[in-house]
């Protein structure tokens, strides 16, 4: 069943797109991630133009994160003040990211930059996650207790000005690194169409020592805020958000998420993290392979404003 997409300006198979949406929803329900890091590449691999894939991916992340954020909000597991400070940084980062995106697109290096960014970020995050989860799995098998997290030197974080109290998370930290984290993730979100939960969650846990119960909910709230701004900016400056494609993907992902969540209950945390790590590394590898193998077609055409 073919459907014509008005912004992407091509016909796609509706069932394939619902399937992609469902697969993303399944993964996000199973692993507790937004799934943007999988969605944007999948759309690009199926022939959707890169800018449409990124803009529409951002819209899809808004849907999936709002659904999950609501659940955490009901459980009172969102530090709204912390999320708010992150979003402030995120909105500026998003604006910078969309501006950089447009410069790269005009210069013809957008696809290269996106590929390299995916390889670097997904490679690092996936590798670290795989190491950590495999170590935990091995230790559990041997019956050894998991060692406590190493205490990092946080004197620099303590010394920075504008120390602020985040009551919900029972934290006293400077808002500078919080805004900086939000800014960096905002740039990534705008460039890659990802929510950035795979960076925010570890940062909140290991860097800021946010209580585990608050981490996911707060990260989701930050993703929701930042990706709303990103969708808005891509739609207004690039006109690259395809509402029809977004709708199909959202419907698929809402359904897929339910199955993923059911599966998640039956799997251990470290097994889930290992699965996510393998998935992340697979996407990074695919981008790397495309970068280093001689392309079958060296030429590409792009229409430009005369």
């Amino acid at each position, binding site marked *: 069943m073919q459907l014509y997409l*008005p912004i992407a300006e091509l016909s796609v198979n509706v069932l394939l797109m619902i399937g992609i949406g469902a697969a993303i929803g399944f993964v996000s329900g199973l692993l507790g991630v937004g799934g943007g890091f999988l969605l944007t590449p999948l759309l690009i691999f199926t022939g959707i133009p890169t800018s449409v894939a990124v803009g529409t991916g951002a819209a899809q992340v808004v849907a999936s994160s709002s659904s*999950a954020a609501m659940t955490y909000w009901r459980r009172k597991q969102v530090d709204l003040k912390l999320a708010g400070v992150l979003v402030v940084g995120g909105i500026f980062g998003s604006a910078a990211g969309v501006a950089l995106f447009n410069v790269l697109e005009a210069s013809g290096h957008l696809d290269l930059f996106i590929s390299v960014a995916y390889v670097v970020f997904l490679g690092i995050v996936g590798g670290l996650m795989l190491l950590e989860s495999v170590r935990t799995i091995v230790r559990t098998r041997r019956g050894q207790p998991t060692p406590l997290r190493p205490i990092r030197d946080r004197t620099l974080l303590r010394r920075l000005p504008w120390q602020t109290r985040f009551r919900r998370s029972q934290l006293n930290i400077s808002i500078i690194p919080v805004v900086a984290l939000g800014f960096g993730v905002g740039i990534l979100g705008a460039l890659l169409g990802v929510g950035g939960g795979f960076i925010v969650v570890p940062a909140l846990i290991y860097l800021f020592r946010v209580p585990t119960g608050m981490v996911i909910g707060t990260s989701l709230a930050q993703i929701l805020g930042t990706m709303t701004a990103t969708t808005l900016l891509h739609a207004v400056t690039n006109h690259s958000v395809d509402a029809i494609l977004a709708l199909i993907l959202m419907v698929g992902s809402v359904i897929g998420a339910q199955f993923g969540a059911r599966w998640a209950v039956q799997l251990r945390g470290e097994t889930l993290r290992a699965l996510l790590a393998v998935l992340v590394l697979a996407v990074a590898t695919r981008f790397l392979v495309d970068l280093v193998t001689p392309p079958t077609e060296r030429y590409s055409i792009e229409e430009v404003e*005369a």
Partner: protein
Amino acid sequence: MRRALGLSLALALAAPAASAETLVVALSADEIRIASTFTGTTITVFGAVEDAVAASGYDIAVVLEGPRKAIVVRRKDPVVGLWINRAETTFTTAPEFYAAHSTAPLPDIAAREALGALGLGVEHMTLGPTLAAGPAATGFRQAVIRLRGEAGHYVEEAGAVDWIGDGLFRTTFTLPADVPVGAYTVRTLLFRDGALEAESTLGLPISKTGAEQFVFDAAHDNAWLYALAVILMAASIGWLGGIVFRRD
């Protein structure tokens, strides 16, 4: 999508001086509208040679041409192991779609120079000026023709125009699912013994219809409203999903 032939019988009576023949050309539809279920279509061009001065020796070429847009063509080269866009050139007026149908192979219909002057055939059509020169420019031009040829957007078919008797001819163009939208022209050329005797040009708008056009226009003309609508849609679908499948 297609209207009756009679409705769109547009006459085009343009003939170079000193020749007696005239061309009458009509299309099987006077516009093409792309709806959500669009998977490609065909358009048939009918025509007649009137006031023929000779019994035989006529050839017909019909060119369906899409709107012309500037394009940047880029070539990947290996840089320290990575394949990166290194060289690029711009063609200012490349047609988004170009299909040339004819009764015989174009080189048999007219001389090379004549085809070049008329911009007739994929090899001879103009893509507009480019900054690159020499062999590099040729490589980029060939790449455009190859890429758009593979997509079914640049087509040349000899023998695709049929004589159906008594000076009447017909040809059918196939438009793929991703045919670019815009103002198309159907250019019909009548040759006799290698010389252009008559020419006719008809317009053929190809546009998105209904919902597709509405979404496209909204995204471009009311970008802020469109963005807010998409975000509202995303949030409410997420919210609904959370309500329907609530687990706690």
